């Protein structure tokens, strides 16, 4: 029964991005900055490090697929890159000790990487007219700040949750 908590937690994190967008006014900062919530991805990275990498890759595939269909309509983007990011993270944490401050840097690196990839993809399919400078100043920095704050607030509870879930599954 307690095993159902894992998909439930991931589903809540998945929806939390768009629920955040309901509360967050898009006209904040006069539209000069466009921070994008990436809470689900942070949760997924915690899962890959503190729970199990392969399960995290599977969740990445599944929720990436949902994300593509439900929100963006551009099939394949998150479906492919979420698992890849999980894989890169697991490679990085093999070399670096995954204490919370070190992991903070890794998470921000991953989010920046994902933003860059998504920007590249959107330029490729001509869905954006942002120049690279605009992208860096308006999106990338704001996104990193927002998700950094989220990490600082929720890193300890998230780590605790996944460690507990790991005990349940073992």
């Amino acid at each position, binding site marked *: 029964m307690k095993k159902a908590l894992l998909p439930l937690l991931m589903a809540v994190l998945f929806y939390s*991005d768009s629920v955040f*967008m309901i509360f967050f006014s898009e006209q904040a900062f006069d539209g000069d900055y466009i921070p994008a919530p990436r809470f689900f991805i942070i949760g997924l990275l915690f899962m890959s490090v503190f729970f199990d990498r392969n399960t995290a890759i599977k969740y990445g595939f599944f929720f990436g697929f*949902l994300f593509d269909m*439900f929100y963006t309509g551009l099939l394949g983007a998150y479906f492919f890159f979420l698992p890849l990011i999980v894989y890169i993270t697991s490679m990085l944490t093999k070399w670096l000790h995954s204490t919370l401050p070190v992991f903070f840097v890794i998470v921000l690196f991953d989010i920046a990487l994902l933003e860059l990839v998504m920007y590249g993809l959107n330029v490729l399919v*001509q869905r954006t007219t942002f120049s690279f400078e605009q992208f860096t100043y308006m999106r990338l920095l704001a996104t990193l700040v927002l998700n950094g704050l989220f990490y600082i607030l929720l890193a300890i509870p998230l780590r605790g949750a996944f460690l507990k879930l790991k005990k349940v599954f073992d």
Partner: protein
Amino acid sequence: MPHFLTNKRLIILLGSIILLVAMIGFSMRDRENITWPEKFVKDVTGFGQNILSKPAGAVESFFDNVGRLRHTYEENEKLRTHLEELAQLESDVARLEKDNAELRKVLEKEESLADYEPVQATVIARNPDRWYELITIDQGESNGIEPDMAVMTASGLVGKVQSTSKFTSTVQLLSAHDSNNRVSALVQGDKTVYGLIEGYDEEKQMLRLTKIPSDSKVKKGQAVTTSGLGGVFPKGLVIGEVSELVPDEFGLTQTALVKPAASFYDLEHVMVSKREMTKVLPEEEDRQQVVVEEEGM
């Protein structure tokens, strides 16, 4: 880096890249509506989204209301002055509507491009990755919504339905960057001027009204509405007002920057307009031809 790219991993990586390109190609195609597996996924995901966003929306509007309470007095004063004008306006509208109906009967022209039936909808999600200006609403095919219908708020047009599933629809906002996103519009004045709403100026936050004949005189402040000539949108939906005129690259036409009447931000409730007069979209095969011809030009 030992064992970083073994053969097996390389094959998986290459295979997924091919799959990625194929899937993106598939979703970028000019298609009328999404396939049924996508519809199914959308309905299931939309169900969960509904459960979470409806309470969140309620909480948000509660705080909004609390914030608004502070300005109640000033608002009340303002509204009271409007109310007096409103009574007069209402009787005028009723009289004109009756006149219009009678005259139409005389002309034996009962249908009009302006007729539409609004469907109320609530916004349940906004694309959280914020690359595309897409919102999801809680009404779908079961309420008669079809792709390409106009979506508006009380103050004006905001976008069009991009795809539908049984219980949800995805709406593309006018501010989205998409070359297929065109709306036939007209500028109201002594002489009606037609143009196309095409593209959005991110910096000035204004819509671009293109293809205005160079000899027509468009003035700042004139109202822009849909013309109903595009074949899908009803006539007379407010889009905004002209705020600036710029000559085109070749000087053959003019482009006007239009300040949108409706805000594209913080949308909560929208209306989808079902046009009552028959649509004039050609059959699918003919339409393909039209697209090819347009591209060839």
